[in-house]
């Protein structure tokens, strides 16, 4: 397969899939009956496609589920004019719930409520799940066996992230005054939340 032909197939596939495609999926896609195509060749083609975009209004982006072409951020306001509807805005309650699930997964609804200090509405949990940003990844082995939630790859894709690592870092807890010192330590022991371990489970999906 010629180089340019390979590039063309990959470009066409990424533009029609309607979702990001992983390197693995691209390997399968371009594999011929006769011969397969190395991951290296595909990586090269992707790099070349990326370079082709340098001056253009779209870019090749690598997110959690793979590669996709998307509009450059600086053009987005103008492109948004194509639609009558404004982009959805999310409430603080929903974003705080999402943040807690993202940084503290696996987490139960009850635990979210404890940290936020208010109950979490069912419609927020439903909205997060319908968006496929969040899903039930198991049940905590305590009475009532409450569901524990985690974020999905679609969440990462939507927010232009490759992995949970790329989430903005949580602010450090500032040193507490004397009497609270111990509490502070108790907290600092907790590793800065890096749910890579969880990532494995989520990725398995």
């Amino acid at each position: 397969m010629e180089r340019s032909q390979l590039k063309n197939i990959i470009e066409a596939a990424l533009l029609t899939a309607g979702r990001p495609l992983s390197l693995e999926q691209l390997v399968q896609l371009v594999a011929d009956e006769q011969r397969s195509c190395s991951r290296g060749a595909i990586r090269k083609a992707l790099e070349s496609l990326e370079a082709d975009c340098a001056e253009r209004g779209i870019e090749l982006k690598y997110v959690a589920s793979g590669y996709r072409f998307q509009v450059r951020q600086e053009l987005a306001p103008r492109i948004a004019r194509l639609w009558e509807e404004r982009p959805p805005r999310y409430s603080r309650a929903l974003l705080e719930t999402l943040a807690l699930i993202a940084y503290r997964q696996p987490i139960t609804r009850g635990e979210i409520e404890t940290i936020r200090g208010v109950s979490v509405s069912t419609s927020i949990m439903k909205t997060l799940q319908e968006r496929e940003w969040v899903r039930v990844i198991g049940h905590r082995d305590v009475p009532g066996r409450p569901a524990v939630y985690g974020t999905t790859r679609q969440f990462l894709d939507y927010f232009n992230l490759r992995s949970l690592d790329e989430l903005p870092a949580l602010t450090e807890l500032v040193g507490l005054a004397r009497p609270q010192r111990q509490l502070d330590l108790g907290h600092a022991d907790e590793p800065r939340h890096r749910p890579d371990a969880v990532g494995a489970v989520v990725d398995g999906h």
Partner: protein
Amino acid sequence: MSNAAPLIPAQDPDTPFAIVRGEPLTELPADLYIPPGALQVFLEAFEGPLDLLLYLIKRHNLDILDIPIAAITRQYMEYVELMRELQLELAAEYLVMAAMLTEIKSRMLLPKPVKSQDEEDPRAELVRRLQEYERFRQAAEDIDALPRLERDTFLARALSPEVGASKPLPQVSVQDVLLAFKDVLRRAEMFSHHHVQRESLSVRERMSMVLAKLTAHGFTEFTACFALHEGRAGVTVTLLAVLELIKERLIELVQAAPFAPIYMRPAQDNVEI
């Protein structure tokens, strides 16, 4: 709020201390002489007692690690009272927090004979919760600021070729639609007392037709939407549809003078009082 002595008078007047519905708020309505509506918006903007407390702490430029508990409790209670007076729905969590604050206050007042090393500041737990919540409040803002699809970027797509192996579209059956409808109604608890009548559907369909026509053509003479060849039943359906559209404020009837032809048009912006 009315006669409470301000905790700390000094604060930068230009620093927004709260974001209400996306708008930075640099000044809290100082007393009750503000329209209750505005206050309501303000109060509803709190995501719960922790949020409210953090706001009070910021507002008065307090050190979160050394909260003057008596003063903050008084302020907190004033808000809670205010919400009650305005008959805002007050989540139970606000009252639980009120009880917690009162308890901390009384423990702070207890004389401490010997200061033991292990003794914990009565405020410790509250401080921990406030800080923990604040981190995630910030994290939520950070996530909101991430460039995201449908707002800061859009997926680029090209059409698949038309002939041959074109991209298949998902297949749906009428049953799927019906089951989905039943499901959503059941969830909305409308199912038991709501049956869809064939008749009402034909009216619904006619409503869409009339509305689409008016949206496309603007003014249309009332009589023009009736197709006489449809017979009495058809005309009745159209009439019902027009009446329903008027009721739902989707279209309006206009008549220049008595006995002049009646026109229909899509509902306009009416002057709001």
